[in-house]
């Protein structure tokens, strides 16, 4: 697979994750996924900032794969697709959103640990 295609796929994945988190930050959808567990203000803040971070990373990924004009166009189209994907997930398998969120957290934690370990080793 070419680098450009890989970056586009990564951008799509990050956009889906970003919108999944954003959806969970909305009370209606939080209830759909977590039932009676309350959506506290800190939880909402974490979900929102995590979502912005991932959508930003998604833009960076598409910028890495294409020329700027095409990358921004691609990113906009990927955002639209991600919204549709998240809406379909919420409609059919809302629990998956929970799993996705946990997996994302784990992946990020793993990345951070790997980064720290890598730095220590290099140092």
């Amino acid at each position, binding site marked *: 697979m070419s680098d450009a295609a890989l970056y586009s796929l990564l951008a799509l994945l990050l956009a889906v994750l970003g919108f999944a988190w954003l959806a969970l930050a909305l009370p209606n959808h939080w209830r759909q996924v977590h039932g009676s567990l309350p959506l506290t203000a800190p939880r909402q803040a974490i979900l929102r900032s995590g979502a912005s971070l991932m959508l930003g990373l998604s833009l960076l990924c598409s910028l890495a794969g294409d020329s700027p004009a095409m990358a921004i166009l691609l990113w906009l189209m990927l955002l639209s*697709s991600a919204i549709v994907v998240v809406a379909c997930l919420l*409609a059919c398998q809302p629990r998956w959103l929970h799993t996705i969120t946990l997996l994302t957290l784990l992946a990020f934690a793993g990345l951070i640990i790997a980064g720290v370990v890598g730095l220590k080793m290099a140092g």
Partner: protein
Amino acid sequence: MGELHTWAGVLLGVLLFAVFWTGSLSVFDKEIDRWMMPSTRLHWDDSMQRPSLDRDIRPLLEQRAANAPVWTIILPLERTPFLTLTYGSEESRKSSRDLFHPITLEPLAKPLTLGASGFIYPFHHNLTLRYKNIGAWLVGIAGMAMLCLLVSGVVIHRKLFSEFFTLRLHRAFGRSTLDVHNVAGVALLPFHLLITLSGLIVAFAIYYPDAPQHTYREQVQSGVSAERAFLGEALGRIRLRAAKEPGELAPLEPMVAKAEQHWGPGSVYLLRVNNPKDANGNVLLRRTSHSSVTKDIDNFRFANVSGEVMGRFQASAMVNTWNFIAGLHYIQFRHDALRWLYFLGGLGGCVVIATGLFFWTQARRKKQQRHGHLGVSLLDALSIAGVCGVILATLAFLLANRCLPMQEQLFGLGRARVEILSFYALWLVASAHAVWRVMRDQRLGYLHAWREQCTAIALLAVLAVLANWLTTGDHLLATLRSGNGPVAGTDLCLLAAAALALLAAHKLRRRVPQEETLEVAHV
């Protein structure tokens, strides 16, 4: 805002659907062309050696159109993998066109069809009503209506944010239709704004025909027409007058080499020789714009006799802004992922329009349960004819392309015309069927009409795939294995369309008894 959304949608929804549908297909017009023109199912990529202009291509031109006032050479490209030569004739500007194998230069069998790029794409921007630009104006009005619909839709969607991702597919029919309309509408809003606005801007010359008159006053006073002045200055299109004295055309390869010094190797794809045998002629070179969104309209002009550079046109920053917007709309650059996303985004627009129409007639039907609802029934018929009808018509066009015998003349008409006639004929039949069904049973006829036309779509789509197999031998397994993307992709899309249409028909079939019990409950 609600009224604006309703009226713009009801009045122009059907027209908008046709424009979005044909527009979505036009994203892949060259791929559909390969499906419709089996003799051009060839392979070309940039690593292959271009035929020599002077040694190979010039003799073909001399042999076929020695006295033509214009020769055009379009070199093979990835999405159009053949050599195209067109020649004007003395009598008319309308030129004839011949296609050749990109390597052997054998003439290819005439396609005898306009294909998607010759019919579906023009339909998208002018509905093939060329007289006084009526079609283009209608499309422009529909485009303005789409902008109104997008803005008013956001305003009236009160729970825009709290229900941003809400898609209740298992709830009541009306509820889920509206949810699909809302989610697809909101998710695709940026794309739909972009594509509608750029579509209107691309065709500015039709909507503001007098603009050059005001900008080029001085030139008009000195006797040049305003359009000519505009075309020359802004777009680099300059018309030449023949000297009526014989001249000999200089070799073409050095011209290409000189232009490619500036543009990069392999970037020239089109050469137009004006007045090839006259002392006052020129050779115009154009370049591809594969790697940028901006549609490149720059050109090099060489004197035909001396082979010297006569001029180089470089579009101004202003014109290139317009070219960027045009490039956004035409998506001719090399980016498969974006092309698919554009295709799906366009089809998403079709979904938004169709669900909008369907939701509106359903809501009206509920309100007017006790009265007769002739108006609603007619609107139902219009929606069915506009949504299923145009899809059926497109399938008839494809099916006619594969089933009609390969003869230049059929029933006293050109074969290409018969294909187009089948398009309109099936559209007419589908409309008649919708009206007949809806009028015969004003309560449930519309459900039967939707269901039957969905079934017909599935049937025709599968038949088209079969017809392609039987007439060309290129069945899906073969095209997938040999990596023939355009043909395999068209076949797969046809099969996907058939599956979706069957699913819709199935849902509608389950809907009929539910509706009946509802009606009984109301009485």
